[in-house]
């Protein structure tokens, strides 16, 4: 470092290329050849490819099992609506006859069936063949679970009670838990978060590798159509790449929406969403202030659940309606649409118990764009947005992902040395790929990875651990062989 400038010592200019910085070997030294760095060698795209290949390979090998479990459990989940409709037909469906009884009577019947429960909400079916669901909180249930009584709206007979998770019946709740946390509770959520945190990395990396492969025009179709004529590893890669290309948009969507549910990344995403003003709004149950003379009367009078529903329907609410009774005196009924299939209906109103008047209306159309996207994305991820078509697409994505993971492992297997004695694994892509990437490209990539890694800790921490291990192994090997860095 020169001492003259007032700065800590740095070269006046960075080397324009590696070659420019090579120290000539001194006579008598036994030297290794100098390796060019990324400061100027080759094109950026060409220099990135080996690094992408190494990242794609190692991430695939390590995260593959987690993705495989997520894909298999997700595939099982896609059939949940059909499983539910078969298993719980008795509770879900009724034969229409005459006119439905008042909701209040149905709720009273449900309360008699669940005497030790705390009424939480009432779901009025959309069609004449749907039963009414009356949901209770109850001691002794697992966290997040409730007890739901299913009532025939035509004679208020209680058809049965089931433990439910949100609006999901037991079978779907079980599959949901399996997909989300393998029934391992909060700790188990890390598996699905790890899978979701790395799925997009694998997809984008794979896309860049596959679409970035030099091809002539005749072979351009091999991008999108597997090469049936190829043999061995090349054929496997052709299927892996082509299927990956077709599945990429869907898999990226699943990764993004899956992350919104995750524990660590989900909290970060929620914070970012709040900061951007895109959080999902909700109607307030607080009642508008009234004159002191009317206040007591207003707090004790209740027009009842049927009047609250009627007021909501007058306000334009349709389809499946979920009614949440006032939790305490001085709060409002909340009536909310719960149609999660396209076109989504998620409007909600607050109704004053004393007067039956709508005190606040919240339209889905008025939701922030981010909140709408979140709602659509989550519904699509769960197979709810477009019904059967949605379920079929999800199933195809899951099957495609399972196949790609297995093809990936097969490619690794096919890379193994066959002339050596004993068991051997396939070679990993060569290390040192990062040396060929210019600093101007690598620096923003590192910073971007650090920022993403902070917000998605189960992307960042495994990446950090891998880098530390990889660098350590590299140093040890270099020292062992006496090679230059």
């Amino acid at each position, binding site marked *: 470092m020169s001492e*003259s400038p*007032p700065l*800590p010592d740095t070269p006046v200019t*960075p080397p324009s290329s590696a070659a420019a910085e090579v120290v000539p070997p001194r006579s008598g030294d*036994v030297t290794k050849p100098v390796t060019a760095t990324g400061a100027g060698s080759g094109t950026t795209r060409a220099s990135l490819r080996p690094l992408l290949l190494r990242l794609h390979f190692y991430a695939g090998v390590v995260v593959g099992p987690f993705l495989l479990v997520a894909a298999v459990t997700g595939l099982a989940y896609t059939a949940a609506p059909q499983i539910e409709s078969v298993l719980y037909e008795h509770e879900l469906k009724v034969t229409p006859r005459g006119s439905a009884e008042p909701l209040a009577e149905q709720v009273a019947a449900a309360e008699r069936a669940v005497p030790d429960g705390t009424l939480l909400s009432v779901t009025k079916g959309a069609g004449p063949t749907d039963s009414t669901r009356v949901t209770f909180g109850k001691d002794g249930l697992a966290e997040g679970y409730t007890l739901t009584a299913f009532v025939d709206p035509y004679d208020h007979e209680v058809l049965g009670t089931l433990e439910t998770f949100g609006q999901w019946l037991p079978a779907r709740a079980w599959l949901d838990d399996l997909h989300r946390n393998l029934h391992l509770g909060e700790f188990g959520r890390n598996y699905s978060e790890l899978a979701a945190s790395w799925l997009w990395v694998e997809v984008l990396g794979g896309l860049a590798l596959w679409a970035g492969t030099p091809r002539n025009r005749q072979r351009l179709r091999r991008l999108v159509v597997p090469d049936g004529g190829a043999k061995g590893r090349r054929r496997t890669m052709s299927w892996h790449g082509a299927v990956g290309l077709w599945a990429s948009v869907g898999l990226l969507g699943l990764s993004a929406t899956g992350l919104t549910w995750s524990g660590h990344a989900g909290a970060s995403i929620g914070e970012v969403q709040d900061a951007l003003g895109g959080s999902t709004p909700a109607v307030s149950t607080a009642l508008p202030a009234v004159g002191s003379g009317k206040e007591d009367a207003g707090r004790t009078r209740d027009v009842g659940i049927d009047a609250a529903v009627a007021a909501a329907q007058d306000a334009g609410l349709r389809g499946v309606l979920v009614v949440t009774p006032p939790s305490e005196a001085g709060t409002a009924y909340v009536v909310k649409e719960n149609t999660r299939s396209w076109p989504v209906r998620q409007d909600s109103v607050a109704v004053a118990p004393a007067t039956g008047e709508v005190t606040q209306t919240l339209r889905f159309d008025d939701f922030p764009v981010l909140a709408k996207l979140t709602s659509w994305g989550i519904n699509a991820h769960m197979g709810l947005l477009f019904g059967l078509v949605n379920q079929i697409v999800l199933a195809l994505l899951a099957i495609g992902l399972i196949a790609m993971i297995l093809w990936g492992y097969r490619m690794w297997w096919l890379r193994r040395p066959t002339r050596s004695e004993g068991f051997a694994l396939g070679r990993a892509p060569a290390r040192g790929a990062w040396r060929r990437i210019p600093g101007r490209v690598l620096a923003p990539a*590192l910073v971007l990875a650090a920022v993403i890694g902070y917000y998605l800790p189960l992307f960042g921490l495994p990446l950090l651990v891998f880098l530390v291990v990889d660098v350590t192994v590299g140093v040890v090997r270099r020292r062992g062989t006496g*090679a230059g860095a």
Partner: protein
Amino acid sequence: MIAANGLRWILTLMFAAPALYGLWRLVRPTTGLTGRVGHLLHAAMGVLMIAMAWPWGMDLAVAPQVVLFAAGALWFVAASLVWPGERSRSGAVRAAWPHALMMGAMAWMVAAMGTSGAMAGHGGGTGHGGHEGHAASGSGLASMSLTATGPSVASALLAVALTAIGLVWLARALDLARVRAPLPAGGPAPAGTDTTAALDPACHAVMALGMAVMFALFA
């Protein structure tokens, strides 16, 4: 003060690296006088940035910090004009302005935090200013924030500028780190090979990027 514990520790480690490096360069016999002053200022900046991330840092007096960093900014500009060294005068100024900007930005940040009543030495010197509550909440990223539009915009602009500066330095550090002199097989680098050339820009990069995070939170 940063409320999120994880980020607080990450920033602490980020600022500790250039602070320790600055102290190491300060005591090296090969470091000249102007270099020593520069490294001392960087070490002080690292330590005070760490302080800014922690509750106890809010108790530090504002005025001495503002004076120190304002003087530091002036030092880098003046020294580049008076002792350009191997560089041309314009080249020395070009090399010095990021350091001057960082010092000036620090002075402004400390002053702005003092003005907002978050630090000691302002508004009757109430000290903690209720930051225990922020630390306990852990919900937001930071308790340091500005409500006024002007300072908030300035802070955002500084965050962008510092990110850009940090990226340039980091790119330079990466390029320097990967310059490979031929090494004797299994032996040390030949005499005269500067194996630490990349440390300088690397530490500047870490400092600039860490400051960018702080300013982004401050905005």
